[in-house]
Every structure is written in structure tokens, then in C-alpha cells.
């Protein structure tokens, strides 16, 4: 079993919600990624979503696309990303790591080899943005068989029938896309999300994380009140982009601490 269920049990016992930051592996340069992952944990991350860079990130906004382009300029491949996870595991065997990316790098790697190598590296879950359930039944079964959680997306446009399908094929948690749009968008409607989450939680029978467009402590606190996890990506990438490289880790820890405090009921 992956590290994800235990993480949610522990949080539930403490009446806390999970904070899931996203960074792109290899951004702003490959040598900083493992340090940034530890910095995220120091800032209060419960699970880390590690983006696998792809040349054509169709579901991402400009911020994460730029991060992908910076990483690809260093030739960061899926092999290299798995190496980063192995490195991270030398000091942290508790925090779950979820790889998030697109289908093609995984297919080029070979799905079977990828599953085996991901488990060996210490990966806990995989979210493939352009693998909806109808296109990846075999891959999801392979992952589950190896102890990896296939994480699926649900969206504001998803039908009730879809909830059941995703619940059956996925495990770990469900990633609810909080808006119609790409990552980092500015049109988040918190009321609409808050209204939708309870029904989804009931239907899917596993923790529900919410992401896309959450940019500050107030929004994170609001989401944490209804969901099981808050995912923040683009805003952290911006923090990394705007920091001198030797200060990126410190700044990311400080930023995340602010979000964590807001979610735990402190001042945002």
C-alpha cells in the first residue's frame, strides 16, 4: 500500500486537512528539486505532487508551462524525475509523492517498466492528466497491483455517473479541478466549489483534494473547510520564479507555512 491512506488517517485523527503543493521536477534547475521537496515538507506539506515536464502541457496555464520549459531545457526526463524521488526518499520515507504529468512520456518509458521503477523509487501515486478512466483501465489496474494509487480528476462539468466510475478505478484521493480552465487561472468561484464538494465526497468514498486557481491562505482555508486536501501549484511556481535561486527553498517554506496556518485556523 502507498503512503497516502496513512497520511489521510493521521490527518483525520488530528482534525486537519492535507496541504498538497505542486512543483515541476527540474524547475528552475534539476539540482534544486530535491531540496525544494524537503522545503515543502518543512513548510507543512502533507503530500507532494511532483510535475513531470512535458513539451505540450495542454491542461496547464502559462506558469506551469514555463516551469516545464525550464526543466526541459535541462533535459529532465521521466528517468531523471524518478531519480529525484529516490534521492528525496533517502531523508524522507513518510511524505507521499504523487507524480503528475501527461501520458506520452510514460508511454515512451513503457507503462510496465514505469510502474515497477516508480514503486522502487518510492512514488506513491500517479496522476496522468490526459488518461481519463476510459483510456487507462489496464494501466490503473497495473498501478493498483503494484501498490501505486491511480489518482483521477473530477471537474465541475463531470456527471454523477462519472463520480462512480472514477471512484471505482481510482484510489488514494480524487483531485477535484475547482474551475473550468487551466492551472493557475483566476476565475475560481469558491462558493460553487464549496457547494459541490460534499456530494462528491459522499459519492467517491475517498478523500477529495481541490486544486486549480487557489492562490492564497484565505482561499485555502475556505477550501479546507469543505474538502480533505488543498492543492497549490502555480502560485508556488511563481514564488520559485521570483526568488534568487539560492533563496527559493527558504521562500517556498515561508509561503507554504502561511497557507498551512490559514488552513489550521490561524491568521492567513
Amino acid at each position, binding site marked *: 500500500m502507498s503512503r497516502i491512506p496513512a497520511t489521510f488517517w493521521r490527518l483525520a485523527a488530528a482534525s486537519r486537512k492535507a496541504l498538497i503543493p505542486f512543483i515541476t521536477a527540474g524547475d528552475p534547475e534539476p539540482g534544486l528539486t530535491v531540496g525544494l521537496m524537503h522545503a515543502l515538507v518543512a513548510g507543512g506539506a502533507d503530500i507532494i505532487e511532483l510535475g513531470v515536464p*512535458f*513539451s*505540450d*502541457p*495542454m*491542461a496547464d*496555464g*502559462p506558469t506551469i*508551462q514555463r516551469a516545464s*520549459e525550464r526543466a*526541459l531545457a535541462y*533535459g529532465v*526526463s*521521466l*528517468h531523471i524525475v524518478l531519480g529525484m524521488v529516490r534521492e528525496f526518499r533517502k531523508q524522507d520515507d513518510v511524505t507521499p509523492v504523487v507524480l503528475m504529468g*501527461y*501520458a*506520452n*512520456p*510514460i*508511454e*515512451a*518509458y513503457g507503462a510496465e517498466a514505469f510502474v515497477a521503477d516508480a514503486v522502487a523509487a518510492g512514488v506513491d501515486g500517479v496522476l496522468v*492528466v*490526459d*488518461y*481519463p478512466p*476510459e*483510456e487507462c483501465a489496464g494501466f490503473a489496474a497495473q498501478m493498483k497491483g503494484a501498490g501505486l494509487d491511480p489518482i*483521477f*480528476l*473530477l*471537474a*465541475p*462539468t*463531470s*456527471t454523477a455517473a*462519472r463520480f462512480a466510475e472514477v471512484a471505482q478505478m481510482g484510489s488514494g484521493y480524487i483531485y477535484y*479541478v475547482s474551475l*473550468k*480552465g*487551466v492551472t493557475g*487561472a483566476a*476565475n475560481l468561484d469558491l462558493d460553487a466549489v464549496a457547494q459541490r464538494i460534499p456530494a462528491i465526497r459522499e459519492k467517491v468514498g475517498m478523500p477529495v483534494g481541490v486544486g486549480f486557481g487557489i492562490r492564497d491562505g484565505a482561499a485555502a482555508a475556505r477550501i479546507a473547510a469543505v474538502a480533505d486536501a488543498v492543492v497549490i501549484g502555480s502560485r508556488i511556481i511563481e514564488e520559485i520564479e521570483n526568488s534568487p535561486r539560492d533563496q527559493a527553498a527558504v521562500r517556498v517554506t515561508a509561503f507554504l507555512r502561511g497557507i498551512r496556518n490559514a488552513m489550521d485556523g490561524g491568521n492567513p
Partner: protein
Amino acid sequence: MQTPENSYCLPDARGHFGKYGGIFVAETLIPALEELRLAYEAAKADAAFRAEFEYDLKYYVGRPSPIYHAKRWSGLLGGAQIYLKREDLNHTGAHKVNNCIGQALLARRMGKKRVIAETGAGMHGVATATVAARYGMECVVYMGAEDIRRQAANVYRMKLLGATVVPVESGSKTLKDALNEAMRDWVTNVADTFYIIGTVAGPHPYPMMVRDFQSVIGAECKIQMPELVGRQPDAVIACVGGGSNAMGIFYDYIPLAGVRLIGVEAAGLGIDSGKHAASITAGTPGVLHGNRTYLLQDKNGQIIETHSVSAGLDYPGVGPEHAWLHDSGRAEYVTVDDEEALQAFRDLCHVEGIIPALESSHAIAYAAKLAPTLAKDQVLLVNLSGRGDKDMHTVAERSGIQF
């Protein structure tokens, strides 16, 4: 449209052509694609919709397009007879408009008031802007910044037609990046926006729907060829970027086993140079832009930047049905490089008084290679998918001429 005697019945219900095609998109778009599929199936079964489509093809586009016997050129080549399907004579100057009318009518039927499109050479953008004006819809076209530079005249045409042209600065700044950006727009504005994809790629139902709308090309040929030469051609030749003009002319010929189907990919500066756009010839299967197909990618699964003198072929993937036709052996895929295409462009200008698009020049160049190897009673049907007015700038520049 598929006819009853047509035994070929791909894709399957989920959009698969063998292992190719499918629906590889983020969850947000799944319901929109389902809505589109249902709307398209209902429209296809509705005689009134088909009549409306056919009316506009006849009176607005000017169909059927003629087939022209390039007698002088065939004589000079000294082999098979070459016939040209004149899609260049369509309103807006290329085959693209057939599909745009179909999709715009569907958009109107679905109550969508805003249409978006991606474009490479600008022909699909112009065709979309044209039909958006015709049906009174708002139109936004995404175009790579590099393509905007190469195709300035088409950019101005789109603006004249009332469209907003959005330059795409990400990635390689060409067609694939414009497609990414159009997908992002669609996912954000999915409730009121219809995405008019210009080629037989993208998630299901697009490859099927675009093929169906373009299949009017081959359906006409199947009637016209017996009238002209008393029989069907020995080979049908078309250029392949995404592959919509090729699927359009191939489709009705798939069940006729005696007719060779030849798709011509862009070899750019040569396959060995790595600077080309020949996805089937030099690519491997993968997932991009919502479907599984042949892609030009590196060993890590990153998409490679392509090159062709013709912007319309400059795409690292190919429609999934072509991938299937290749694997099944029903169609052959060959390549023609920049220089060969430019030579064919000049030859057709000089010998037949027809200025072809650089895209179509690839098909013409291959016909010119094949014809001399065949007997004089053999018949080659080439899809002259567009006219070359838009390429004046590119061709002149290569001869050192500035306007």
C-alpha cells in the same frame, strides 16, 4: 458521409481506429466531447442538416469541384495520366472550408455563439473566420507567432473577416502550440464555445467528424472519374500533415482494393537531417492532442519541433485513421522534401497555369516521380487541396525577392 455500401466502419464507439485514436483529454473536456458526439450523431441522421450542409457546399463553396486532366504535364513526364481534384477552386481557396461549414452548422444547431480554431498555414483559420462571418458568430483563431510571420496575408484576411487572431508564443510557436492554446480556451469557455478543429486529429469525435465532412471530396471523385476516364483511378495521391484532405479523398476509396492510396508527408530538409514533419515515416506511436497516433518525439516522449517549407504540413502528429491505414497496409505513406515540393510548385505554374499551395505541391511532386514509372494508360488522381496565393511570400523569399 458514409454510404450503406461502404463496409469499412471505423472508428469504434469510443473513437478507436485499431489501437489509434481515442479520447485522451483532461476530465473537464470529457462531458463536452460527449455532448459533441451526441449532437453530431443526431445531426448526421437528420436529413434537414445534411440538406443545409449540401446547400452551402453547392452555393457558397461552389461544389462539386472539377477534376482536371493535366494533359501537357502528363505528356512531359511521359508516363501515367495525372488528374487534379481542384479543391483549390473552392471558396477560400482550399479544402478546409468543407469541414468548417459542417462544424459551424453543428455549432449553430448546438446553440454555441462563439467558435475558436487553431491554424498553421492560416487556411483553416481563414475558412473558420469565413464561415463565422457567414453564420454571424464570434470567432477567435489561435496561430503560432512563427506562422503569423510566415503567413502575413492570411492573418490580414482573417482580420478582414472579423476574426480575432491570437499569436501563440509558447513552445515552437507553430501549429501544435496553437492547438494547445485553443484547447485551453475551450476548457475555459466550454459552455458557450465550439472548437472547430481543422484536421482529422484531436479527441473523438473530431477525427471521424472532420473526415465525414471532408469525404465529399472522394465521393465526388468516385462519380467524376468514371465520367472522365471510364473507370476509377489506379492511385489516389494526397499530402498529409494532420491529414484532412487526404482522408477526405481516400475515404470513399478505402473499400475499392484496386485503388492505391498514397499519402505524401513532408520530408523538409530530408529525413536524415531530422528537420522534417514525416510522422508516419519517421515517427513512433504516442499520445498527443487527445489521440494516440504516430508522433515525432524524442526517446523521452517529448514532442520534437518539426520543419517543412509549408506551414500546413508542419505538425508533429497525424490523424489516427492514417496511422491505422498505414499499419493495416491499406494506404502507403511516402515523403517529398522542400526542394522537390518547390520544383513541383514551379512546374505546375509553368506547365499548367495553376499555382498550387506548397502543401499540395508535395502530392504533386510525388505524382511527378511516380508517373514516369507507369504506363501511359495508368491514371493518377491527385488532390490539389489548395491554391498557392498564400505562399507567394515564402516562394519569393527563397528566390531572394522581397515584396
